[in-house]
């Protein structure tokens, strides 16, 4: 059993913020943890046999071959964010390796905590070797009192080998003055499965990301699910991309977006390059208060035998649905919350119960404050 995570220098409020972003300090439902506060790695361990959670620095000391996984999917010159992270003399972040055939049902938690006015940078490498199954929850949060604001730059490279599976559930719990720029990419080999889930129900100044999954192997699968609420002042520029290369590869990109006054740009791109591939992109948006939901779904097919589809809808809460629930005795607020709750309820196939519960808990938290 891994040890309890101690964060004595954190206030109770900040510890609560960690919990809200999916971090279990008691480690009851987790098999391993990584905790980075600003630029200090405070905790990195895993009790699950065959799975290692290491700081970026330690991992490179231990495994020389890791250089073959470093900056292989994302170019260091891609943009200002990648350049900044690549220029660091002392790179931070984590490396998680699920060795051949290993698996965890209790997820590993990775927490990135931003407590000071600064840019927090991380470079993460996640590898599931042949036949391994790896579940990770990544909770990203900032202290309640990050004065003028800060930024988080995160590079993540995922390698899903033959018959392997990675689920990565990222819960963002930043604040109004934080800017976040994740840059992530994954490559999925034969029969591999990559599930990427993103939940952001709390205010943030700006998030910009466009993770890409390249499905190289035959019958490989990627599913991206995003559940987001944009409050006034938040700009969420979100996308996900799947490149279908392996015969029989398939991808699903699902977004549920609500604006309460903020701006959400929901991008998506599926590129079907091989016959026998399938992809579906779905973005549903609800405008609760004047704000922007800008859905840009793109599907691109270049061979006979790729099947791609998309569905995008932006609208308001339907009055007849609210009144239907009211006729069953719910008041208007209860009826509204019940419908929004349903709207956000995306059940993710293949996700362990503990992680689905964590996603549900984030929605519960948003519901408590009246969505």
């Amino acid at each position, binding site marked *: 059993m891994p040890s309890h995570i101690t964060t004595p220098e954190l206030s109770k409020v900040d510890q609560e913020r960690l919990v809200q972003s999916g971090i279990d300090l008691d480690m009851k439902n987790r098999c391993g943890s990584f905790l980075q506060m600003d630029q200090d790695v405070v905790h990195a361990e895993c009790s699950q046999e065959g799975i290692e959670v290491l700081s970026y620095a330690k991992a490179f000391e231990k495994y020389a071959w890791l250089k073959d996984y470093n900056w292989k999917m994302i170019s260091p010159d891609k943009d200002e964010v990648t350049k900044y992270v690549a220029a660091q003399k002392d790179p931070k972040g984590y490396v998680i390796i699920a060795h051949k055939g290993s698996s965890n049902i209790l997820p590993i938690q990775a927490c990135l905590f931003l407590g000071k006015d600064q840019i927090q940078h991380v470079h993460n490498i996640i590898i599931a070797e042949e036949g391994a199954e790896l579940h990770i929850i990544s909770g990203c949060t900032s202290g309640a009192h990050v004065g003028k604001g800060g930024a988080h730059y995160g590079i993540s490279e995922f390698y899903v080998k033959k018959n392997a599976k990675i689920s990565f559930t990222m819960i963002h719990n930043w604040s109004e003055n934080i800017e976040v720029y994740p840059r992530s990419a994954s490559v999925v080999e034969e029969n591999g499965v990559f599930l990427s889930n993103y939940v952001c129900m709390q205010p943030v100044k700006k998030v910009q990301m466009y993770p890409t999954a390249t499905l190289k192997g035959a019958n490989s699968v990627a599913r991206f699910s995003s559940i987001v609420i944009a409050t006034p002042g938040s700009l969420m520029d979100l996308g996900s991309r799947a490149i279908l290369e392996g015969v029989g590869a398939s991808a699903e990109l699902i977004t549920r977006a609500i604006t309460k006054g903020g701006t959400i740009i929901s991008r998506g791109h599926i590129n079907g390059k091989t016959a026998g591939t399938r992809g579906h992109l779905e973005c*549903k948006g609800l405008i609760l208060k004047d704000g922007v939901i800008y859905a840009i779904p793109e599907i691109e097919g270049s061979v006979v035998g790729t099947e791609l589809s998309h569905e995008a809808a932006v609208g308001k809460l*339907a*009055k*007849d*649905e609210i*009144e*239907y*629930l*009211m*006729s*069953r*005795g*719910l*008041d*208007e607020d*209860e*009826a509204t919350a*019940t*419908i929004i*709750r*349903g*709207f*956000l*309820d*995306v059940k993710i196939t293949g996700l362990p119960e503990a992680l689905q519960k964590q996603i549900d808990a984030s929605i519960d938290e948003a519901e408590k404050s009246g969505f």
Partner: protein
Amino acid sequence: MLQIKNLYVNVGDKEVLHDINLHIDDGETHVLLGPNGSGKTTLLMTLMGFSNYTVTKGTINYNGEDVTNMHANERAKRGIGMLFQRPPTISGLKLGKMLTAISRTKQENIPELAKSVHMDKFLERDINKGFSGGEIKRSEVLQLMIQNPDFVMLDEPESGVDLENISLIGTTIGTLLEKDKHRANRKKSGLVITHTGYILDYLDADKGHVMCDGQIRCHGNPREILKDIKQRGYKECLECRHT
């Protein structure tokens, strides 16, 4: 239980119901007949308190209280319930979650009740999404079983339902309306819209009314009225101006 006096109702700018008068006592079940588009559903939606239906004149009195301007949830809390003919589909909202949300006592055994109307396999489905006609009606009946209203309005409970399920739905609604009790001991009342009359085999209705062009044209024994309509259609009703 329910007293409607000189009720006029607009849907948008158009007056749809004109001078409706109806009295339903405790324990009574009334049947509302009439051709398509005559205003039957409008009356039920108005009684339930849907905001698209504006009462321009008249009153709705329920158990001695004027409910004319009450919201639907306030009426539901007072014991008014409705089986919808075409309820909306709510994406993502699971039937089971909805039942939990509407359960007043939180004591009901939802899985068991669902099983009794063959809806146990639908608890994890989005409400009404892809449901057949019969499934919609069984879902509606199940919601009413949990809501347990004192005054039950039923908008064509048998439409789209196969004969086997009419028996199940009919019997269950019969229980909701305390038809298993002696007439003198019944407290629950009902107002039922039907075209076929099949549901009447289970409901032991007390009175029938015929609605045409937004008016109630005649009252009488429900079976006799239905027999007349089956033989002669609504032509004479439409021509009839007596109320």
